[in-house]
């Protein structure tokens, strides 16, 4: 092989480029122009509002179709009745743990591992998670998500984050566990701490959303709004008090393209199956532990101790102590438990908000611990303060409105 000098090398480059590159005038296409519309604030914000509407509308219809249309009937009219018939020893603690309340007429209120546990995991969470990850994948593969990151960059800078923070934020609406892992896309410790803390506190996961849709369909909008406001307000405060930098974002925005069915299918399978590998054992184990805590009287004892705080400060009944303790194991199950407690509409909003902002579920807790124990302790300190302040503030709003 002969060695080429500099001139010969350039000649070779010229020959190759003449054969392989087509030169011409670049024409701005309709796709390019639409792409520009989605990142300019004046036009991009209405488009983002429409995309979020589509996201939510699809989520509700899809999840409602499977949960209300088929799974409720399957679990309540067949699975529960069959279990109640064949499971021996209605008075035993084993029956209480696995089947739950013997007089329950639906899986929601039974609270057994095989009844509520399976119903929540398969009947409620599975459709919600599939719907969520399907839309997320479509947005990602079509090229809209990077544009949303550019569009929202200015707003997120106000809370110490940059546009990429939209990725863990949206992922968190599915499950907080992969969202905590996704905070690694943020460069500085300050950004990662703020993101991890506010997503663990203020963003309800897909499982919670699915249960909220079932239990409090009328007041769900208020709860989401209140959580969203908390996300912005506490993000802003954390940005002011935590030292460190928020770097600017440098992003390569790809052209819009049609997502391929194969890619979407593969991603959907990967995300849904990994969610279930992580979440399903926690749902079932959570049911066992919560039932054991109820059986041993621990939850009633905690309820008695915490009742002055719950009634006086948060304005909710002392019975909500149980679901709050259960929330550490499974937040979705805790929301389901709240539905069985007699409360006013406003107390229910407060209780669901409290369950949502209360300690992250144990799976998220473990994930946060992997990111660093100092960050975890910091997040817990912020969380304790937020729960006390935010829960009290909500109670104050109800008092001022004359409804508490």
């Amino acid at each position: 092989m002969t060695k080429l000098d500099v001139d010969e090398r350039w000649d070779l480059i010229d020959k190759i480029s003449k054969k392989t590159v087509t030169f011409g005038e670049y024409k701005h296409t309709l796709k390019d122009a639409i792409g520009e519309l989605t990142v300019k604030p004046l036009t991009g914000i209405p488009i983002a509002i429409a995309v979020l509407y589509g996201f939510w509308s699809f989520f509700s219809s899809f999840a409602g179709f499977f949960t209300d249309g088929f799974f409720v009937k399957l679990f309540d009219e067949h699975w529960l009745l069959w279990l109640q018939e064949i499971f021996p020893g209605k008075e035993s603690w084993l029956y209480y743990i696995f089947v739950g309340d013997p007089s329950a007429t639906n899986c929601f209120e039974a609270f057994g591992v095989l009844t509520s546990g399976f119903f929540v995991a398969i009947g409620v969470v599975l459709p919600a998670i599939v719907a969520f990850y399907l839309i997320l994948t479509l947005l990602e593969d079509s090229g809209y998500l990077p544009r949303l990151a550019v569009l929202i960059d200015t707003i997120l800078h106000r809370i110490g984050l940059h546009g990429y923070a939209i990725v863990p934020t949206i992922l968190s609406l599915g499950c907080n566990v992969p969202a905590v892992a996704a905070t690694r896309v943020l460069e500085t410790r300050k950004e990662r701490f703020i993101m991890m803390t506010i997503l663990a506190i203020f963003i309800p996961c897909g499982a919670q959303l699915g249960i909220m849709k079932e239990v409090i369909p009328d007041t769900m909008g208020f709860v989401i709004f209140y959580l969203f406001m908390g996300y912005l307000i506490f993000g802003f405060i954390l940005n002011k008090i935590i030292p460190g930098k928020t770097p600017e974002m440098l992003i390569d925005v790809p052209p819009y393209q049609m997502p391929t069915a194969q890619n979407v299918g593969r991603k959907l399978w990967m995300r849904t199956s990994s969610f279930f590998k992580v979440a399903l054992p926690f749902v079932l184990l959570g049911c066992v532990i919560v039932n054991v805590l109820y059986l041993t009287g621990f939850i009633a004892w905690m309820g008695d101790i915490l009742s002055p705080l719950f009634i006086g400060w948060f304005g909710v009944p002392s019975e909500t102590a149980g679901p709050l303790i259960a929330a550490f194991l499974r937040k979705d199950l805790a929301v389901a438990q709240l539905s069985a407690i007699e409360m006013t509409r406003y107390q229910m909003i407060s209780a669901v908000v409290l369950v949502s902002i209360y300690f992250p579920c144990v799976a998220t807790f473990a994930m946060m611990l992997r990111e660093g124990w100092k960050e975890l302790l910091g997040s817990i300190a912020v969380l304790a303060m937020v729960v006390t302040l935010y829960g009290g503030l909500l109670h104050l709003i109800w008092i001022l409105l004359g409804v508490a």
Partner: protein
Amino acid sequence: MKRLSSIYFGILGVVTLAFGIADLLVTIGGSGLSFGILEIPCDAFRGGWGGLIILSAGLFYLAGIKNISEIHQLSKVMMGSILIWIVAGLDIFAMITESIPGGDRSWFNTLEGFLETYAPPYTPAIFLLPFSLVVFYYILKKERNILKKEEDEE
């Protein structure tokens, strides 16, 4: 062609804007309205949020009608249509998901019940849907004209 398209999308823009405003007003009023086969929902989600999107679609149409053949202007008209497709498409998807399950009686709906779900009244977005599809015809026609022009030049 250009003038006709501007007039068409101008009228569509005004109607879309009016529907968006009506959606919002009805939502604020708190009770749904029904005129024959048209129904304006009053819930905060479809009426309020959906109404805001329809209103935005109307504004996109109106912003794009001047010099519509220019690619940036056309993209606004296209975006107006996309917003309508999002709202109408999901209204239709909601109808489909409601029409299949049988409720308390059986697993699946009866044929009568299934067809009943698709009967009017319809939301404003569904009425606007066929008219918004004209944008495809316009883009196709425009592309054909450009190709023809390029061939003539060659």
